């Protein structure tokens, strides 16, 4: 438990050092019990268009394209800065629900995170 928490804290600092938007400290703490999920961005698509996770899960998007993208919630719940090649963005989903998102640069790119216990 402590170890997992430390690992996530470390990850959060690394993200902060990279200038990437990070979840609030409280969200990190809540994220500790669940394994993180990852979505890769490539070929102008989110490689897992639908991801289902438990509440408290941190989801990380990484841009593997040669072109910048964003991860932008349809409902204003989260919004990354622009992600250039290799950049990533993480958000911890504290509560249950369905969270649609898209790339605000290339809006035909869409995805959904489903959060349920």
């Amino acid at each position, binding site marked *: 438990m402590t170890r997992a928490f430390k690992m996530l804290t470390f990850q959060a600092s690394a993200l902060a050092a990279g200038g990437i938007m990070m979840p609030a400290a409280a969200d990190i703490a809540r994220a500790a019990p669940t394994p993180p999920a990852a979505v890769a961005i490539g070929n102008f698509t989110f490689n897992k268009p639908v991801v289902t996770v438990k509440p408290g899960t941190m989801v990380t998007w990484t841009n593997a394209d*040669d072109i*910048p993208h964003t991860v932008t919630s349809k409902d204003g719940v989260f919004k990354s800065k622009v992600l250039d090649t290799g950049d990533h963005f993480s958000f911890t989903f504290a509560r249950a629900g369905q969270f649609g998102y898209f790339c605000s*640069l290339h*809006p035909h790119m*869409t995805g959904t995170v489903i959060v349920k216990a």
Partner: protein
Amino acid sequence: MFDDLDDDRRGFLKCMAWAGTGALFAFDGGIGSSIGLDAALAAAPKQGAAPFSFVQLSDSHIGFNKPPNADARATFREAIAKVKALPVQPDFVIHTGDVSQLSKDDEFDDAEQMLTELGRQVFFVPGEHDMLDPDGGKAFLNRFGKGSQGAGWYSFDHRGVHFVALVNVADLKPGGMGNLGAKQLAWLAADLAGRSSSTPIVVFAHIPLWTVYADWGWGTDDSAEALKLLGRFGSVTVLNGHIHQITQKIEGRVAFHTARSTAFPQPVAGTAPSPGPLKVPAEQLHSMLGITDAVFVRGHDRIALIDSTLTT
């Protein structure tokens, strides 16, 4: 070839566009001398006025440094040199967006500085890459959008031709393509109202104003509403960028054209897994980048669009 065209300029203009000819036609057949834009704007349009030209640059992506182009600044500089070498200098230049790769100040700075070398006024519209500052496009607008409205739209007249700059990269909707929005469409309706249907119109915007390929978002969701407002005009030319290749279409009295990028080519619609940069060999790159020279002769219906590549 040019001699023939020159003998029959009407036919020349009806041809309208030559894609990828790599030709720099010598407009020495009376296609007139340019005058300063301020003077041109101040002068009332008069019948039989001298013809004029303007140049379209697009998708310079200053800051892009990945295959197939390690230095988009260098190729933009080459494009500018190409414009300076035109036998008849354009009255002005339009840039149809994606000036920068990431909306960074140094990218905008370098683009602005290089464009200054032309000694011509430059009219801009933003591309989606120019909207990436934390304020969603303010950095671009403060620099290149002075006097514009909303997300950066405006219009101006030049020698009897009405130019309309539209923005279709702001406030994009999930699952959608380019978007003009109700506010801009209302402005366009008011801008066109009261203008004679015989006024030649040039519309420019970043993303194509017709659907080139919906799967890649290459179109504008509400462009039909804009085209409806333009429908009564006898000559409408629509100039776009975004897709980094030449495409053209004529629909009634509206001619659509997309320009090459000065930074990198993109695949033909649907021929690749994604619209990402086409990684062509270094020796091919310059033949896929370019500029567009637009020549207008009063009394004729159409603007002649001449695309030329950066190949030396």
